[in-house]
């Protein structure tokens, strides 16, 4: 197809901040005076791949461009932006890529009410999940239906062919069909009706004022009522989701990552909405209460006995008007399967990053929905909604005995030996002394190393074995300043809101996971009342496996744009 020409827009190629580095990659020069406005425009359609100190790399991906198309951008405006901000002419190959990829979204449309061969409406029948139309209509707007149906696995998911451009789709197959077509680079614009669900009205608390970007996120999500809102850690994803739920005014199922998160959501529901405690139910390993607002863990939903998922029917039972997926980038495959079956319900995914370590971003796109809103953390930092943070790697030298133990250990044992290097205790002590009174979390992965550290620091510790009540008590104590330091295991990775904590010291991690790094950093970047800076330290045993993990972490943080410094423990 012929791409629209940027030159036709009347905007001459400028000596802008963008460098074209291949058919699908552009580099943004931060030193350029137009860099900030260019970044804002780019973020709408390009994936930020790396954002280190001087030059940021953006990639034009299928999902990025489809998300932009779903958000209402067209190829012309994308090419216009590229042309407007490029330091030189935009190559034709890039324009073709944009035009061709964006034209794919909308070429296939899924409609909700089915007009049969006589044109009569058959909408409103029971669907596989008990709501919505029993069958839907897949139509092509560019005559590509035959090609789409020839894609692997698609033919078995559709029903009767109505004419050249239309085919019926059993409602049960709605999600799987979208998945298969995204796999084939034929994204479906799902405009089929969503079920209203059982009504359950509530409001936001009168003293809660949504931040502008939160309001914008809700407004972007609401029209399609299916999709993902991407907000940096600390930007208030929970509040944004509650605002969306209040707009919907229906029974809501919230899927979260663990019990601590459940408590967090409940606490925010009570604090920021008019929902009564009695209307909130917990569905977890401990409790199976279903209420108008039910919070369930992914774990319990995906738990199986004798090969069967025992709690998936929770979804069918409640006639939910909205399903919220917290930390949607962690959605386990069982929940993907479940989500494929509830495509007639409103879906809201929340995440700080759409990066999935397993690369299943396409499933999030097709099953939860396209990205509806995204705001770069730096923009929020500039606006004062996030605290600026510095990242420091502190190197300690293991003793000869520790080196020997590390050398002779295998597999994960090496990481444990490195985690427990004794010199870390002294370094952590000195770091805490440097930030006395600022509220600090000492985060680690291995209890075998964390427990002695907590003892040496004389600080309380929260791990998976700590009861939920005790965890909440300790978190509250840190929040209000009763204690200055809390040693935590991986339980603190997710959904832990400690806004006044400005120092995080991680003493061990899980193989340099990017998710974990983002989540841990998120603990400290929530804006501080006094505007102070956040500090994120990683204590690493030199010449051990930790140094390798640390390098991955360093890459991730530097790519995210955080200043990253390495110091030796002896220099503290």
């Amino acid at each position, binding site marked *: 197809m012929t791409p629209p020409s940027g030159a036709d827009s009347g905007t001459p190629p400028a000596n802008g901040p963008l*460098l074209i580095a291949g058919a699908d990659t552009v580099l943004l020069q931060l030193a350029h005076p137009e860099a900030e406005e260019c970044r804002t425009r780019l973020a709408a359609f390009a994936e930020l791949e790396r954002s280190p*100190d001087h030059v940021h790399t953006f990639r034009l991906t299928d999902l990025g461009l489809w998300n932009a198309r779903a958000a209402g951008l067209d190829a012309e405006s994308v090419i216009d932006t590229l042309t407007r901000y490029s330091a030189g002419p935009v190559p*034709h190959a890039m324009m073709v890529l944009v035009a061709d990829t964006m034209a794919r979204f909308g070429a296939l449309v899924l409609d909700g009410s089915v007009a049969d061969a006589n044109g009569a409406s058959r909408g409103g029948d029971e669907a596989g999940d008990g709501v919505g139309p029993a069958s839907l209509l897949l139509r092509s707007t560019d005559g590509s239906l035959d090609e789409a149906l020839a894609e692997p696995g698609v033919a078995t998911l559709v029903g009767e062919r109505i004419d050249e451009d239309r085919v019926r789709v059993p409602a049960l197959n709605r999600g799987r069909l979208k998945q298969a077509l995204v796999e084939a680079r034929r994204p479906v614009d799902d405009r089929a009706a969503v079920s209203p669900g059982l009504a359950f009205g509530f409001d936001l608390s009168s003293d809660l004022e949504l931040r502008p970007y939160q309001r914008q996120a809700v407004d972007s999500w609401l029209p399609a009522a299916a999709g993902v809102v991407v907000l940096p850690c600390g930007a208030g994803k929970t509040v944004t989701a509650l605002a969306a739920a209040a707009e919907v005014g229906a029974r809501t199922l919230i899927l979260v990552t663990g019990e601590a998160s459940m408590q967090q959501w409940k606490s925010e529901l009570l604090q920021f909405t008019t929902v009564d405690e009695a209307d909130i139910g917990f569905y977890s*390993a401990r409790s199976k209460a279903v209420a108008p607002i039910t919070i369930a863990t992914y774990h319990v939903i995906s738990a199986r006995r004798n090969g069967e998922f025992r709690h998936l029917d929770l979804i069918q039972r409640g006639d939910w008007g909205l399903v919220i997926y917290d930390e949607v980038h962690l959605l386990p*495959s*069982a*929940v993907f399967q479940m989500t494929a079956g509830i495509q007639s319900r409103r879906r809201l995914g929340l995440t700080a990053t759409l990066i999935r370590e397993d690369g299943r971003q396409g499933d999030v796109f097709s099953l939860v929905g396209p990205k509806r809103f995204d705001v770069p953390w730096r923009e929020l930092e500039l606006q004062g909604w996030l605290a600026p943070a510095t990242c420091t790697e502190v190197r300690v030298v293991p003793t000869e005995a520790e080196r020997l133990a590390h050398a002779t250990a295998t597999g994960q044992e090496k990481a444990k030996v490195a985690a427990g290097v004794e010199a870390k205790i002294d370094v952590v002590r000195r770091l805490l002394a440097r930030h006395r009174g600022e509220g600090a979390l000492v985060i680690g992965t291995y209890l075998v190393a964390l427990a002695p550290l907590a003892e040496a620091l004389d600080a309380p510790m929260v791990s*998976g074995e700590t009861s939920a009540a005790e965890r909440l008590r300790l978190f509250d104590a840190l929040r209000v300043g009763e204690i200055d330091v809390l040693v935590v295991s991986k339980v603190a990775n997710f959904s832990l809101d400690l806004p006044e904590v400005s120092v995080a010291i991680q003493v061990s991690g899980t193989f340099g996971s990017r998710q974990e790094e983002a989540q841990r950093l998120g603990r400290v970047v929530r804006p501080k009342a006094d505007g102070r800076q956040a500090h994120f330290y990683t204590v690493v045993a030199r010449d051990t496996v930790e140094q390798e993990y640390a390098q991955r972490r*360093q890459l991730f943080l530097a790519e995210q744009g955080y200043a990253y410094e390495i110091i030796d423990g002896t220099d503290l």
Partner: protein
Amino acid sequence: MRFADHLRQWDPDALTHLLTARPDLLSAVDDGFDAVARRASTPMSLGRCLVRSDVAMLVVAEALVLTHPATPAELDELLGTNDLTSVIGALERLAALGVVVIEGGVARPVGALTDLFLRPLGLGPSFTELATHLSSSTLDDLATRLGAGGARSRAATARAIAQRLRATSGLSAAIADAPLGTAEMLEALIDQRSPTVGLPAGFSYQRLPEDDPLVWLLSHGLLVAIDDHHAELPAEIVIGASSNGLAPTAALRPIALQPVTGLPAETVSASAADRASRTLEATEALLRQIEAGDVATLKAGGIGAREIKRLAKLTGIDDRDVARLLELLFEGRLIVPTGSGVTVTPLAARWWQLSRARRWIVLVRAWLGASVFISQALSRTDEGKLRPALDDHEMLAAAGSARRGLVDLASGLASGEAFDIDQLAEASVWRCPNLWGVGHPPPEHLVDWTVAEAELLGLVAQNAPAPTLAALASDDEARLHELAAAMLGEDQGHVMLQSDLTAVALGPLSPRVAGVLGEMADRITDSAVPQFRFSETSIRRAFDRGWGSEGVVEFLSAHALSGVPQPLSYLIADVERRYGSVRILDTRGVIVTEDEATALEIASSSRAARLGLRIIAPTVLIGPVEPRRLLDELRAEGLFPVIDGVDGCAGGPHAAVRLIDLDAPEPDDLDYDIEFDAESLPADWTGPALDEMALAGEVADAVGILVDDPGEMSGEEPPHGLHLLRNRAAVVTHRRDGQLVEARGVVVAIGDSITLLNESGVEDLPIDSVVAVEDPSR
């Protein structure tokens, strides 16, 4: 005036033009004008010259051969083109090439031009030449029919007949009483534009019925049998039959390209610049690979498809492009095949030193002068095989003509105008019809290949000419360089070093800096703005190549726009600290003694120095000598050594000196490293899906603990380490039928049983039967 005397009067420019266009004359230059004229008049030299002539020149030359000497007007009349200007133009071009001589407004062919076989008009020999093959009675009979009888000689009769046949009325009179179908046959013979007619084997018109049209034509002298197998149609008959002229007027005029609407000029320029840039980068990457001495050739010659694909993988370049660029490098004499591989030539070193624009121009010039269609490397032959690169494939004479046609014709289009391939093919063929001969693929295919090649170089984009094409066409080197420099940018000497351990060039990087950076960091993009990533491995590579940390930092500091970021300095220092902390010694024999004294005794012997032995531990010596020789030498020294295998078990138990044979086969090793691949699960696998969340749940169920946070299960110290075994090789000791047995495999699930996947399939071991689970690598 003789042709040699004409040449004497030519000015130097004209002579230069002649010798440039007809290089075969150069060897005669030293012998003077007479020798040059003689050489220029030979059929072979004239043939070489006319094979590169355009349709107008060939048509006019053919007409002149038939009727010479002739004025341009006479030729125009004979041809019936009514285009005197074009006739004059063609004559002048022929004259400039020394093919005709124009004197006093009259043209005549030079030397053996009359013998030429290049006859676009399809005119055969004249009747006067062919008359020698006719009997006197046939000649007289034909003369009578045409009212040309009564001439004094046979030759005069032939001339008179020829004169009559040229006129339409004459030809009509000649076939007035011919049998039915004769006129149609004659028409068909004329239309085929080839004067020679093949005769059937054993054909004898005397024995065939008179009313056969072919027999009639032959027996009446209108088709002349020159031997038992061929007959010729006299040129005058073709002229007589062409009442509208021999050649269409259009044949004398070059075919002008009719522009079609293309992309905006800016888009064409941008696309061309992008492609030119990428091609230059890719060529450089390929050349670097060849410089590393890493390209093999086929036994039969050329670089095979497998090698090309390997290079494509190594360099990240499309394999078709790799093949084309190899051709280009070869045509530019930057690489040359050796017996078993390909090596760079001394020109390559000079090429690297050129500016970016100049490097590109070298490639463009190489393409323009190439003897093959470079786009055909790695294309499929008719037999379906992939053509190797550098294999003289498709060395078609049309290659140069097609390229020149594209350059000259397309460069005439205005900005924003594009060309149509078929029309470009037609116009290119007109310029040199004899180079697009029989056996070639159709012209539009050849032009299509040529356009693809020009697109690769960024001379053309979307069938529209880039600005550089016009400069190339006009041979304006300064302009070409100016445009190339603007299009490709200047080489940059500096990069932006970032704390994510990347280096980004904000434009094309100078090959020298890129080359050194490539030793210290991995190139992650091959675009015009190259990016590099530093890692432990890449810094180690730099150290392996002789760099020290100071040198690396110094180089980076000198070429960084914003200083060396601290994480990069740490990385370099880290690698330096660890570099060489473990050393590998090259040795063949290891001597182990029972005590230190024996080791010292050996070390201090005269043989030790000769054998290169040295002590590396109190009772261990090593040397670059194979064990069998060591054995003999030490026995000669009065010792009693034995040779062990590497397992240390082969020697006698009482030997005071053991020699370890490093070449001895290693004992069977345990096969711990079982690759696990979810797809290798049996098709009928009904076990649990390999999902972390589900697994966490199963572990919880299996061991009876509450797991409320999957994050905890994936990494935190659990009450037991079972789940850590997932996807790992394990040795599971379990009870079966009262016996303790070991099972090995990859743990794919843990629940009521431990499920192992191994070479024999899936094995479920009930958890109650499991006694121990061990990591086999310990």
